[in-house]
């Protein structure tokens, strides 16, 4: 009866195998490491999609398994992006500034360098001083720590407050949405210290690797995203498969019962909420260097709702479903809105997908919720059942 973890969860093996094949395939077709059939920008799109899959898996654990419909996980994703973006922007600006000051008759003092960097970064919001939150921006290590710590702590504090007062169901959803809105509004301010509306930009340039082409960098990030997705998948599969999974599914289905069994439900929710928030932060930290720019609009509540939509369409309560949903909807979305889909001429009216995609998405989402509550993942059940 003691089967290994992998043997108990064949889907993990399948998922890793397909991901590996996909990763290698893309590598072989890419510009620098392969036959140049996939453009660099498309490699970036695929890499970003993998990060979205990762945050979708986290969302699935917190919603599909634990029953907390969080409308804040994309905010954690964004925080991760901001944390790494601060270092990327600082280090790159520092490089440029130091280089530009080389020819000066007097070598610059550290203060002078810092002033010029500040001016470069914050000039756009009419400031040149470094805000306190940029204190660690010069250290990659500390900022990487921030990627994990900031979303983690925020989720911990928020979750502790929310769960201890027994806010559940739709109330909790609305509360998380309020948190996201508050964060987005805060970031929209110019004096937030994160360049307000402008966000952070130029993140695709990795300091210290200025000579390496974007084509190579894109492949590196693609691989990093794939590895992170694989690790995240295994990690969450491990969590949801054991007794922990039993308890959190129990909380989803009947919170009070779990409580009367002697489990401190709030701790479990907090554990799941915080862990998934951290993974979301990591996914964001991998996503935004590939996107190149992050601004507060990315954090707006609607993004978190889209995240829920992906998971719902992919199929809740199964990790691969969430990954499929995220990949499927986000790629489809960029195909439709990017002008890839052909317009449909109805004779009296021509449907341009750039205008009508959201209408289609909205209504198809209603259809999925009504008629296919198991999402795309539900199709796999049909397959498996037919075989057996």
């Amino acid at each position, binding site marked *: 009866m003691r089967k290994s973890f992998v043997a108990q969860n064949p889907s993990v093996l399948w998922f890793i195998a397909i991901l590996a094949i996909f990763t290698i395939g893309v590598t072989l077709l890419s510009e620098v490491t392969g036959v140049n059939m996939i453009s660099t920008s498309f490699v970036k799109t695929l890499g970003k999609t993998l990060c979205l899959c990762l945050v979708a898996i986290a969302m699935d654990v917190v919603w599909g398994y634990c029953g907390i419909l969080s409308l804040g996980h994309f905010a954690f994703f964004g925080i991760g992006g901001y944390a790494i973006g601060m270092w990327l922007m600082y280090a790159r600006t520092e490089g440029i500034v130091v280089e530009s000051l080389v020819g000066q008759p007097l070598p610059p003092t550290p203060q002078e360098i810092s002033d010029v960097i500040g001016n470069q970064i914050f000039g756009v919001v009419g400031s040149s001083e470094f805000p306190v939150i940029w204190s660690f921006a010069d250290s990659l290590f500390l900022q990487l720590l921030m990627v994990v710590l900031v979303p983690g702590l925020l989720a911990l504090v928020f979750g502790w407050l929310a769960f201890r007062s027994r806010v559940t169901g739709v109330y909790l959803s609305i509360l998380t949405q309020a948190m996201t809105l508050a964060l987005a509004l805060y970031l929209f301010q110019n004096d937030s210290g994160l360049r307000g509306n402008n966000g952070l930009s130029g993140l695709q340039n990795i300091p210290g690797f200025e000579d390496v082409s974007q084509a190579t960098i894109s492949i590196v990030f693609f691989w990093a995203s794939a590895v992170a997705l694989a690790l995240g998948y295994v990690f969450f599969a491990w969590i949801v498969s054991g007794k922990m999974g039993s308890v959190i599914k129990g909380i989803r289905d*009947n919170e009070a019962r779990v409580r009367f069994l*002697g489990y401190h439900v709030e701790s479990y929710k907090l554990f799941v909420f915080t862990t998934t928030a951290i993974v979301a932060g990591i996914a964001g930290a991998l996503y935004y260097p590939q996107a190149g720019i992050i601004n507060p609009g990315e954090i707006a509540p609607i993004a978190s709702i889209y995240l829920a939509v992906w998971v719902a369409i992919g199929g809740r309560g199964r990790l691969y479903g969430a990954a499929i949903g995220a990949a499927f909807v986000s790629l489809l979305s960029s195909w439709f809105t990017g002008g890839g889909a052909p317009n449909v001429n109805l004779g009296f009216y021509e449907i341009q997908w750039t205008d009508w995609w959201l209408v289609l998405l909205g209504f198809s989402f209603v259809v999925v919720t009504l008629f296919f509550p198991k999402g795309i993942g539900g199709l796999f059940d049909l397959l498996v059942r037919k075989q057996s």
Partner: protein
Amino acid sequence: MSMLLEVSGVCVTFDGFRAINNLSINFAKAELRAIIGPNGAGKTTFMDIVTGKTKPDEGKVIWGDQNMSLLGMSESEIAKEGIGRKFQKPTVFEAQTVRQNLAMALRNPRSPFSVLMHKKTQANASRIESVADQIGLLDSLTRVAGELSHGQKQWLEIGMLLAQEPRLMLVDEPAAGMTPEEREKTTSILREAAKTCAVVVVEHDMEFVRRLDCKVTVLHEGSVLAEGSLDHVTSDQTVIDVYLGRAHA
């Protein structure tokens, strides 16, 4: 002999309605007790108070040898102290297997970290199997709980109580919706359990209470109306008034 649970002078008011009115009731360490009473007598509210779901306005709830007060403790802390509860409506985790249901209830460390690091052991497995045997679900361990019949779900929930190894079991209407054979089995499970811990059964069905053959407490309008053997309480005039008066109204 000191009591396992002493409830004294407890009052609860909901929006001006006194659901529990100066209720005092005690339970010994290993006894089987039936609580009966008409609708609205406060049976479920009494259970809510003991398990920490409802906070009383006044009164004391004293537990165990250390005379610990249960007031102010959370549901999960009270459950860890050894008070198990079965709900009126069978509430098992329908999406999970019988084994998973029992494993979750099994007396083990409850903190998230120890649950995360939990390893399946032979000892645990045999405990699960013995409980499953007791409730007659040994063959159904791998079945999903949602597929079980109504009676089996009731048993599974009682089994989950047993797996918790509580010192006090609060059982709310265990026989509701069961066939006579199933009731028979339920009775024997509860009587068996009462050998090691206190079992308090809230029941409507007099026939079932008679079969339990134990001390009976009658609740009415939030306080104890009568206590004693079933024959004793059913011959009590006030009890007859309450029951028959209601029945004929």
